[in-house]
């Protein structure tokens, strides 16, 4: 006798049961991110400089400036999906600046203090440590997202801190940032009201805003889990990504105010006219070789925004486009490959 229920429907039902069991076990809460062994070698308020040592150093050390929006663990999500671990395997010592999450006491932290203080100090400490440990006279620097935008400002104002600079999905031409640029309109975005009343820009609000940038993203996330649930390794990756995106960080209020006003409202990295702590911000003063990396499906920092570096930066600029989205690019295989090739190219 024929089975009245088609096989594909049975398969679907089985999958639904397995998926329900999986979600009921609260996998996201059990996940541990950032598991690659490392040491914290410097602290500055909430920021931590994390040192990852390779078994056999072969290349110049790499300093990484992470964004202030999420935790650093997107670069060390899970075994096999870790930019940091891939760099260590290739013999690149890594110094990663994790900005942490701002507390209420950090609301008055200015962008000048963040760039000329925390970032410069972390770069100097990384350089000092690299010289003492590896005998390295120079280090390379990589900035991701807003961490990259800040790094470019820093290296244009403080030459000699890094030998080369790479920016990953880091907006420079902010007016080319797509929907985010449309939303960051001084007429409609209540920037001052947010900072004056809340102190810091809340991580939860940031997470919500990013979710609304791509309205299909939330349903797509669940559909992706349903469709690929049986694919080996996918539920683990989904869980780790979910755990990472569930932990947004607070952005220091005063720093956020100046960042949005100068970068999003005035597009000052391209158009100029920004004076930070009494000194003009001028990326044309930057002279070291730079690499701008964009992700092909990035809706937060489209390639036009990232490649604005070509027009703004004083030194030679190369551009590369990798497959993936703003976050997806960090968990794919193409980013470690590109960074290792860049390290070998020195």
């Amino acid at each position, binding site marked *: 006798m024929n089975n009245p229920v088609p096989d594909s429907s049975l398969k679907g039902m089985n999958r639904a049961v397995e998926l329900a069991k999986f979600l009921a076990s609260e996998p996201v809460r059990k996940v541990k991110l950032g598991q690659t062994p490392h040491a914290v070698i410097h602290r500055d308020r909430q920021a931590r400089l994390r040192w990852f040592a390779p078994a056999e150093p072969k290349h110049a050390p790499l300093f990484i400036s992470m964004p202030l929006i999420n935790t650093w663990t997107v670069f060390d999500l899970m075994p096999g999906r870790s930019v940091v671990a891939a760099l260590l395997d290739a013999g690149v010592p890594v110094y990663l600046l994790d900005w942490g999450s701002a507390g209420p006491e950090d609301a008055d932290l200015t962008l000048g203090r963040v760039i000329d203080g925390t970032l410069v100090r972390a770069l100097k400490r990384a350089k000092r440590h690299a010289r003492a440990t590896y005998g390295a006279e120079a280090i390379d620097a990589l900035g991701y997202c807003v961490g990259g935008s800040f790094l470019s400002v820093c290296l244009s104002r403080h030459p000699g801190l890094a030998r080369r600079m790479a920016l990953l999905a880091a907006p420079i031409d902010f007016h080319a940032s797509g929907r985010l640029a449309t939303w960051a309109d001084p007429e409609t975005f209540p920037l001052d009201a947010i900072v004056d009343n*809340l102190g810091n820009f809340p991580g939860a609000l940031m997470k919500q805003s990013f979710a609304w940038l791509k309205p299909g993203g939330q349903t797509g996330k669940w559909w992706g889990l349903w469709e690929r649930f049986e694919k080996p390794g996918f539920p683990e990756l989904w869980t780790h990504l979910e755990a990472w995106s569930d932990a947004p960080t607070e952005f220091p209020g005063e720093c956020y105010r100046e960042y949005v006003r100068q970068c999003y409202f005035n597009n000052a990295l391209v158009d100029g006219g920004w004076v930070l702590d009494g000194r003009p911000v001028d990326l044309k003063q930057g002279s070291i070789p730079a690499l701008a990396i964009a992700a092909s499906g990035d809706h937060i920092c489209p390639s036009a925004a990232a490649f604005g570096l070509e027009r703004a930066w004083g030194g030679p600029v190369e551009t590369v486009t990798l497959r993936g989205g703003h976050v997806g690019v960090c968990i794919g295989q193409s980013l470690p490959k590109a960074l290792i090739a860049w390290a070998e190219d020195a």
Partner: protein
Amino acid sequence: MPEHMSNPFGDFDKLSGDMYRHWEKAMTDWWDQILDDPGFLGAVGKNLEVGVRTRGTYQKSVDETLERMHLPTRSDLTRLARISSLLEDRLLSMEDTLLELGDKMESLERETIKARIESTETRLELRERLAGLEARLEALESKPAAKPTARRTARKSAARKPAAKKDDA
């Protein structure tokens, strides 16, 4: 029997996937119009502004109530944390200064050692030259009164000649 005849539902996965993608596209298109509309953005902005102002006012009134009850407020705790942060900043600046001083000391030490090595080398060189000169001098002194060389004899005879002329005069 062909698949579509034995299975009245067809491929459930493919069907549901196609349905989802159609729905997602339609929904995304609709939201795209809404989310880029200045009128909608203005309304969201106003809403957000009212929300954060209300939150600010609420926070202020909670602080005032706690203050009246002589209890520490959120602002008090923030102020204390800020003081400790400022102290941490000062410590970091001192640490920076110490590290810079350490660097300068190290570089001075390096330069001093280099200068001392150079001066020692110079002294050694001078001592060696002096020893060489002394050795040559000793060698000269220890030589027995040598028979005059042809050149010396010639010089002597040349010296004698004018005297002879004088005598002749």
